[in-house]
């Protein structure tokens, strides 16, 4: 049986960024009301760059792997670069086709990170419509 790409399975079973201790500049939680999954993310900023990232929460393999792989993407990016990330970036790093049914699983951590940064800036938070699902 081969359900997901090996990357997804690996990062689901052994996440790198999950439950790390860090001196967070900002934290934020988002909930996927379709399935109840929750992502709590924390970021430490160094100037305008993402220096550290961690996430907590439980969910399916796609949501957990996407949250973990997001760390590889955002570390060392600027706040604006992270805010400009699209759903396609996440789909690409996951390496499989993401159906509409699983799109919120894949994007939950990205929404949490982008809203954490917007909260830090004092801006208006995004919702799912931002991603044109």
């Amino acid at each position: 049986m081969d359900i997901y790409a090996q990357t997804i399975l690996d990062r689901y079973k052994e996440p790198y960024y999950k439950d790390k201790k860090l001196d967070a500049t900002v934290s934020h939680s988002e909930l996927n009301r379709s399935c109840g999954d929750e992502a709590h993310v924390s970021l430490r900023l160094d100037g305008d760059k993402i220096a550290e990232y961690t996430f907590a929460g439980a969910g399916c393999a796609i949501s957990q792997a996407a949250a973990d792989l997001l760390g590889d993407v955002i570390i060392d990016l600027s706040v604006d670069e992270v805010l400009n990330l699209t759903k396609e970036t996440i789909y690409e790093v996951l390496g499989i086709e993401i159906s509409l049914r699983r799109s919120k699983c894949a994007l939950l951590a990205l929404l949490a990170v982008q809203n954490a940064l917007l909260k830090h800036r004092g801006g208006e938070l995004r919702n799912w419509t931002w991603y044109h699902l």
Partner: protein
Amino acid sequence: MKTLDFVKLVGPQDAKHRGSIVSFTIDGIHPHDIAEGLSNQNICIRGGHHCAQVLMDQLGFSGTARLSLAFYNEKEEVDVLLKALVEIYDYFN
């Protein structure tokens, strides 16, 4: 399904006290992943809260997988399901 020790049936354990809809969980495997795995074997079930989020919270479940059998299902299809559940369990462990 009770022959699979990793499957936890939700609700009455005695078939006399339940219908043909079976909610179940597998420790360490999210219901969506169970559903995705079964979908790969052309078995369509529903996974998640089933619009009963409050009950799921009360029961302490993140969700369940839910199998719905009907008069047109055959024993051979159930055998395929059981085999697929073993494969899913092995895949995630």
